[in-house]
């Protein structure tokens, strides 16, 4: 009885602790008080109206999503190709590849960012293209480490059966291999996308002047006057994330139930 209560209490305590900062952001976005957000100055939606018109924030938002989407796509293609190609490679080659894939994970992101900056500034100018390359490099490991386990679980006999039944290698690849490793590819893409969205250090060192992502924009602007718009934006982001996670949850619960019934 006491134990159950302690557990519940701890859950609630941690929940409050984790959501307090988010609640503070949301409250501040509706607070009309300009000077100090901790003092309630009445309810207003003006921050939301200003947000839509704010070009700095909107262009940062656009850059962030373009960068994350593009980088995640390229990283997913490169990573998946590697994993498929690795299937008939020797053990030494495989472990070397997985080892290389882990370099950017072990390197702190500041070192990844700096090393790429050194490369770019030496040979070319910083641009959106270099930011894209930097993000791909930073997130590729997450794709490889998501897809590789699926490749290892793959049943080669089914692929061979498809070939024996007259399928061309490319057709068998498309109809047998790819569907089998799809969950790994999707996880890898999502993970890569999220890491790119959330990144600060790699972008900070490789970004072109005048181009900002959300993170670098906030870093440049938080001392100035557009704070309330940023709070409004975080409220919107929070709601979007909530909806996305809810959808994932509904689909996953279903899959989880089916899987358990089979067992």
């Amino acid at each position, binding site marked *: 009885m006491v134990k159950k209560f302690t557990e519940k209490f*701890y*859950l609630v305590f*941690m*929940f409050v602790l*984790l959501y307090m*900062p*988010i609640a*503070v*952001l949301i409250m*501040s976005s509706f607070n009309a008080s300009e000077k*100090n*957000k*901790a003092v309630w100055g009445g309810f207003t939606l003006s921050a939301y109206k200003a947000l839509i018109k704010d070009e700095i924030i909107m262009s940062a938002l656009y850059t962030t999503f373009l960068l994350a989407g593009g980088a995640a796509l390229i990283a997913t293609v*490169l*990573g998946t*190709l*590697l994993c*498929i*190609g690795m*299937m*008939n490679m020797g053990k030494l080659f495989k472990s070397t*590849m997985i080892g290389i*894939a882990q*370099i950017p994970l*072990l*390197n*702190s*992101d*500041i*070192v990844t960012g*700096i*090393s790429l900056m050194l*490369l770019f500034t030496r040979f070319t100018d910083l641009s959106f293209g270099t930011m894209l*390359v*930097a993000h*791909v*490099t930073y997130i590729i490991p997450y794709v490889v*480490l998501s897809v590789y386990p699926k490749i290892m679980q793959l049943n*080669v006999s089914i*692929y*061979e059966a498809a070939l024996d039944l007259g399928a061309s290698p490319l057709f068998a690849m498309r109809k047998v291999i790819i569907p089998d490793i799809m969950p790994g590819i999707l996880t890898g893409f999502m*993970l890569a996308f*999220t890491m790119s969205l*959330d990144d*600060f*250090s790699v972008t*900070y060192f490789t970004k072109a002047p005048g181009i900002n992502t959300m*993170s670098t924009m*906030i*870093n440049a602007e*938080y001392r100035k006057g557009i*704070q309330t718009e*940023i709070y409004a934006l*975080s409220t919107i*982001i929070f709601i979007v994330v909530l909806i996305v*996670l809810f959808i*994932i*949850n509904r689909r996953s*619960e279903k899959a*989880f139930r089916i899987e358990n019934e089979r067992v």
Partner: protein
Amino acid sequence: MKKIGSKILTGPYIIWMIIFTVIPLGLIVYYAFTNSGGAFTLDNVVSIADTVNAKPLWLSFKMSFEITVICFLLSFPLAIILSKYSKNKNSIIVMAFILPMWMNFMLRTLAWRLILLNNGFLNRAFEIFGLNSVYLMNTKAAVILGTAYDYFPFMLLPIYNAVAKIDEDVISAARDLGASGVVVIRRIIFPLAMPGIISGITMVFVPSMSEFVIADMLGGGKVYMIGNAIEQAFNSGYADIHLGSGLSLSLMGLIVISMLIYKFFDKGEEGHGIW
């Protein structure tokens, strides 16, 4: 066995990694061991031992250690309780605790600014309850709090994954044989959750070690970590890429060494995934 795909498929990745991972690392090494004239020198790498750099390095190490301990102490019990409620990591209750991770990390840090500012939310709340104000902004405590909050899910998720996989029957068996709750946690859950704990510690400690922007936003320039020293070497008015590369290389080496030492004390556990 028939060949699946072909070796050519690995080509694009290999070329990419050589150009954008191996060569850039080579550049860091090159700059680290040369001076502005291009001559070989050890000064940049050794400069991590100078008081100017050793102090922030030691501070980073201490703070990362504290951050990792705080994250572990908070998330280990939480992971055990959560695993009792649901074994599915995409269930509502587990997701509720991971969700803050999906907010942009700069936004989360900004939120802590609002809370900790001298006339911020925390002191307003204290005022209402008749307590004395606390001035945490621009202190080490603020940076530790903010960083621990940012990296908390990276500790919780792997530990939860490991704990959720533990077979109920093993725990029941221990109980039937007379083990108390504490013994079950210490002798059964803790060792079986070890891979997750290792993952969690790595994923919190390594990024905390090189953090500089949280120290900037919550420490207000008063908390100067090794990440700040490196950033300054590249971006301040006194930019010196040779010194910056030297410091980065030393930091990288120290992280790798501490990971090796840590793996050495914790052998027998292999193949822990990040998630």
